[in-house]
C-alpha cells in the first residue's frame, strides 16, 4: 500500500485531501500540521512513498523547506511534492524548493481535488507528474546546479561567511555593519569584505547586488538550505554549537 505524508496546516490538505485519498485511492495517509513535527514521523523502517508539503507555516518558526529537507535527509527515496497556494509572497520560496530538491511535481490548492489525486497517482506510478500550469511561469525548465542543496555551499566558503550568514539569520531588523560586527565578533572591515565576496555568488540566486535588507531576507528564507553548510564551517573552527 502506498504511504503518503501530508505536511500542511490547512484543513484543505489534512482533512479534505487526506480523507479523499484514503477513501478513493486506499492509500495510508499520515498528516502533520507543523514542520517541527516532521522528524518524529520519519521512520526508515516504515518509509513514505510520497510527501506532500506546503511551504507557508505562519504558526511555526520553520517553513516548508525545513520539512522538505527533513524528509529528503531521512527518506531519500520518498518523492517530494509541493502543494501550495503558490501566490506572490511565496514565489521565491517555491523556486528555492524547486531548485534545491528533485520535486516530483508542484500542485496548487486551486486545483480540484480529483486533479490533485490524479497527479499524485502519476507520481506514485512514474516518479513525477506535470506541474500545475498556474505555477509553470514561476518554475525554470532546467534546475540550476548552483542552487542545489550542495550549491548553497558556494555561499559559505569559510567560517567568516558562516558567521555572517548566521548573524543575518539571527538578527531581527535589517542589521548595520556595526551590529553584524558585534554579533559575529568579526572586524568591521572583515564583515564588509565577506559581504563583498558573497555578492557575486548571490547573483546565481537572482540577487543582483542586493542591499543588506535583501540579503537578510534571502538568509532567513533559505535558512534551512544554508544552515547545514554554516554548521559544517563553524564546526571546523570550533565556533559551532
Amino acid at each position: 500500500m502506498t504511504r503518503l505524508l501530508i505536511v500542511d496546516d490547512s484543513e484543505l490538505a489534512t482533512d479534505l485531501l487526506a480523507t479523499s485519498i484514503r477513501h478513493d485511492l486506499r492509500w495510508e495517509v499520515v498528516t502533520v500540521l507543523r514542520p517541527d513535527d516532521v522528524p518524529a514521523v520519519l521512520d526508515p523502517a516504515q518509509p513514505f512513498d510520497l510527501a506532500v508539503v506546503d511551504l507557508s507555516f505562519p504558526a511555526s518558526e520553520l517553513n516548508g523547506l525545513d520539512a522538505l529537507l527533513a524528509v529528503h535527509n531521512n527518506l531519500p527515496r520518498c518523492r517530494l511534492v509541493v502543494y501550495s497556494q503558490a501566490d506572490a509572497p511565496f514565489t521565491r520560496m517555491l523556486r528555492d524548493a524547486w531548485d534545491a530538491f528533485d520535486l516530483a511535481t508542484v500542485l496548487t490548492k486551486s486545483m480540484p481535488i480529483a486533479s490533485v489525486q490524479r497527479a499524485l497517482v502519476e507520481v506514485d506510478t512514474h516518479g513525477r507528474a506535470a506541474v500545475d500550469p498556474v505555477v509553470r511561469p514561476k518554475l525554470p525548465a532546467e534546475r540550476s546546479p548552483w542552487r542545489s542543496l550542495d550549491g548553497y555551499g558556494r555561499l559559505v566558503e569559510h567560517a567568516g561567511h558562516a558567521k555572517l550568514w548566521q548573524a543575518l539569520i539571527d538578527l531581527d531588523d535589517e542589521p548595520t555593519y556595526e551590529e553584524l560586527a558585534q554579533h559575529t565578533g568579526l572586524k568591521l572591515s572583515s564583515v564588509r569584505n565577506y559581504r563583498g565576496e558573497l555578492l557575486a555568488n548571490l547573483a546565481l540566486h537572482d540577487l543582483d547586488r542586493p542591499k543588506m535588507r535583501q540579503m537578510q531576507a534571502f538568509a532567513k528564507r533559505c535558512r534551512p538550505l544554508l544552515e547545514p553548510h554554516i554548521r559544517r564551517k563553524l564546526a571546523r573552527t570550533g565556533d559551532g554549537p
Partner: protein
Amino acid sequence: MVADEGRQLESDLRIALLTGAVGWRDRNSDYGAAEMAVMAVLAASVAAVVTVLVVSAGLPARGAAWTGASRWAAAAVGSATLLAAVAPTLAWPWGWRHRTATSIWPLAVVRAAAATLVAGCWTVLLGTAAPWPAWILGSVVGGEVVLTGWLFGIAPSGRQWWWRLQRSSIHLGILAVSLVVLVVRPGIIGDLVLVLLTFQAIAAGTGLTCAGLDWLRRIVDRRTERKVELRLAAARTEMSEWLHDEPLTKLRLIALRMVRHERDPVAAAAELTELIHDLRIRQLEEAIAGGSAELADLFAPYLQLARDSGVELVEVPGYEESQQRLDEQARHRVHRALGVLVPNAIAAGAVSLRLRVGADPGGAVVIEIEDDAGGFDLAAVPPGRGLDRLRRELGAEGLTRVPVDGGSLMRVRVEPDAGGDAAAIGGSSVGAR
C-alpha cells in the same frame, strides 16, 4: 572578552570613520533627505574652507614663514586636496560611484594623508594668525563622520563626538609634540597655544556640526515616520472598508441565501469561486504595491480563473520568458490588461486559452492572449466598456487584435519602465466585450 571586543570595535570604528561612508555604502544605495542635508552642509563647508584658504593666501602675511607665491601654492594644494578627498562623498547622489568595492585600508590612509595635508596648508596660511576660523574644517569632518556613523547605525551626540576627538591619537600626538617643543623652545609658547586652540576649534566645529545634523535627522525621521503612519492608517482604513464592502457583504449574502434555500450548493460554490478570484486579485495588487510581485505572479490569478471557469489552458508562459523585469507601473499595466482580456475571453465563451509572453525588438514586453471565442471588431467596441477603456489607456500600439481561426489573438505591448500615474491605470475591469 566583551571589553576586548568593545575595544576592537572602537578601533574598527575609527578606521571606518576615517574611510568615510563611500567605502562602505552599497553601490546601489541612495541618500535620504537627512543625508542630502549633510551633503548641503558638507558642500557649504568645503566652499568656505577653500574661500578662506584662497583669501588668506592673498592677504599680507607679516612675520609668516611662507610668503608670496608659496602662499598661493599652499592654498591651491590645500583646496585641491580637500576637494579630491570629499569628491567621492559629494558625487554619490549624482550617481558617480566606484565600480568595484574598494579596499578599506588604502582609502583610510589616503584620507588621513589628505586631512593632514589640508590641516598643514591651513596652518601655514592661518595657523599663526587666528585659530577660530578652523571650526569650518571641523564642519567638514563632522559632515563626513555623521554620514559614516549613520551608515553604521551609530549616532553619538555632539558632545560625544567632541570627546572622541579629545581622546583621539591625533590630539594626544599634538599635545605630546607641543610639550616637547615647549621644553626645547620655550619662546614660542604663543604659537603652540594657537596650534592647540586651532585643534579645539576643529573639535568644536565637528561636535557642533554632528549635533546639528543629528538634530536635523531626528526632525526628518519624525516627519517621515508620521507620513508613513498616516499612509499606513489610510491603507488600513481602505482595506477595512474593502473587506466590509466586498468579501464580508458577499459572504453574508451567500450564507443568508443558503439558509433560506435560495441558493443551491453549486450556485453558492460558483459565487464563492468568484469571491476567491476577487481576493486573489486584491492580494496581487497588494503584492505589486509592496514590490514583491514578479511578472510570473501576474498570470497566476487569471490562469486560476480560467481553470475555475472550465477553460482549458493549452499554452502558458514559461519561466524563462516570464523573467523580464518591470517597474511598478508596467506591472500594473500588465495586470490591468490581463484583468480585462482573460475575463472577456471567458465571458465570450472561450473553450481554450493560450497565453504567451515575449519581448519586441524595442525591449517592450508583449503579452498575447489567444482564445477560440469568435471574432469581434476592436474599433467597434462601445465606449465605456472595459476593453474600450483598456484600448484608450494602452494606445493604438499598446493593444491590437489579430484574427485567428475561430477566435482572437489580443496582443498587449507594455514598456518595462512605463512610469506615469498609478491611479490612472490601477484597478481591474471585468466585463463582456
